């Protein structure tokens, strides 16, 4: 479903992604872990083409997104992205935040989009916020609405870029629960996270990155119980 081949990315002189190769199958939940500055956020942002790779290819459902020109908009409509800082549209109500993209991209009529939004808000227990503006919501509520906004496009793939890192500790649980439910529903997910317990419990595969390289990847159980590479062992000993 996603195939990354020989991906390289530089920020100025700094080589932040070094020849990355990675393949993700349909329905798989992959956690990207590693110390800060290891390139995991840059990698996930490349998959949504928010960062332009310097070389290499990224295939989504067989289509190369590198140099895809105008077609990138269509490809992105099938990829949901959840950001650390939510990035809700502050000038729009919760309902408008969720329905904007489905309506503008002509995926749904206004009525269909609103029904879809209400259905999503109901499952997230946020129906009472439908006409509020993001400014009046807590961080946990904002992030759940950001997830709903992405899901409203009915994407095949969901990307989470440190979705819980900016939240107060007591709000992390409510967002992780939504992510867990989503994983159980069979969604293909790539999750950049510092929540090791979550990575261990929910993901099918864990990829450990350091210094712009994939150091080790394995099933969640194997990687956490039986890490092979010294850098993985060192990292896990610090965070577990």
């Amino acid at each position: 479903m996603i195939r990354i081949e020989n991906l390289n990315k530089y920020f100025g002189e700094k080589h932040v992604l070094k020849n990355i190769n990675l393949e993700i199958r349909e329905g798989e939940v992959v956690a990207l872990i590693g110390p800060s500055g290891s390139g995991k956020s840059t990698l996930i942002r490349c998959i949504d083409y928010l960062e332009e790779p310097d070389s290499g290819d990224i295939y989504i459902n067989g289509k190369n997104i590198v140099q895809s020109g105008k077609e990138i908009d269509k490809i992105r409509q099938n990829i949901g992205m959840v950001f650390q800082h939510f990035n809700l549209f502050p000038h729009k109500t919760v309902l408008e935040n969720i329905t904007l993209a489905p309506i503008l991209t002509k995926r749904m009529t206004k009525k269909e989009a609103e029904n879809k939004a209400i259905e999503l808000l109901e499952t997230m227990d946020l129906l009472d916020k439908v006409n509020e503006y993001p400014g009046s919501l807590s961080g946990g509520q904002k992030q759940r609405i950001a997830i709903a906004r992405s899901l409203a496009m009915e994407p095949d793939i969901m990307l989470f870029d440190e979705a819980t890192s900016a939240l107060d500790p007591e709000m992390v649980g409510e967002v992780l629960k939504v992510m867990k439910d989503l994983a159980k529903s069979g969604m293909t997910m790539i999750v950049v996270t510092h929540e090791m317990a979550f990575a261990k419990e929910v993901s099918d595969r864990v990829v450990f990155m350091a210094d712009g390289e994939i150091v080790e990847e394995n099933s969640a159980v194997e990687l956490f119980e039986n890490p092979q590479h010294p850098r993985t062992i060192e990292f896990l000993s610090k965070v577990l």
Partner: protein
Amino acid sequence: MKIIELFVEYRYYYFMGVKITIMLSFFSLIIGTTLGGILSLLRLSKFKPLKAVATAYIELIRGTPMMVQIALVFFGSYALLGLDMDRFIAALIAVSLNSAAYVAEIIRSGIQSVDIGQWEASRSLGLSSSQTMRHVILPQAVKNILPALGNEFVTLIKETAVASTIGVLDLMHASKIVQSSSYIAFDPLVIVAALYFIITFTLSKLVGALERRLSHSD
């Protein structure tokens, strides 16, 4: 009160002046803002030559006095193009071109003040760059720049007084007529100042009301 009598006696000139000043301001504001919006997008464009042209234009306009610009348009249209241009039209062109440069800079700063995350979130949902600009970035930018824009509009109204130097029958011109026919130097100026103030103050209040309406989402 002598000053009120003076106003009543010459009311025809003052009303005429108010009308011309408001018309000149209103149309310059519309044209200037439209051109300014386009200029700001050119200025932010990744295509270097367009960016250079927009930047040069803005610097040139900001670096020369409006009084010179207005004379250049009026006399230049005759000297260079052989046109006998209507004074009002010449003033309209000059004020619009002038205001476009200032508005462009205000809009540019407004666009840049919107968090990059807004752009990324919108694009990641699959919206095109023009949809993102129109539905996500510009509404937030406009809200941020409304005070600066209001300020620019007030300045524009006051600057239209320069049109009187090429003979446009605006409010400033009216006061000159009253001065020379009544042989009173001071009082006509007080009246004209009060009239300018009423126009600009009304506009400030309108912009303030708009600001309050747009701040509902905070």
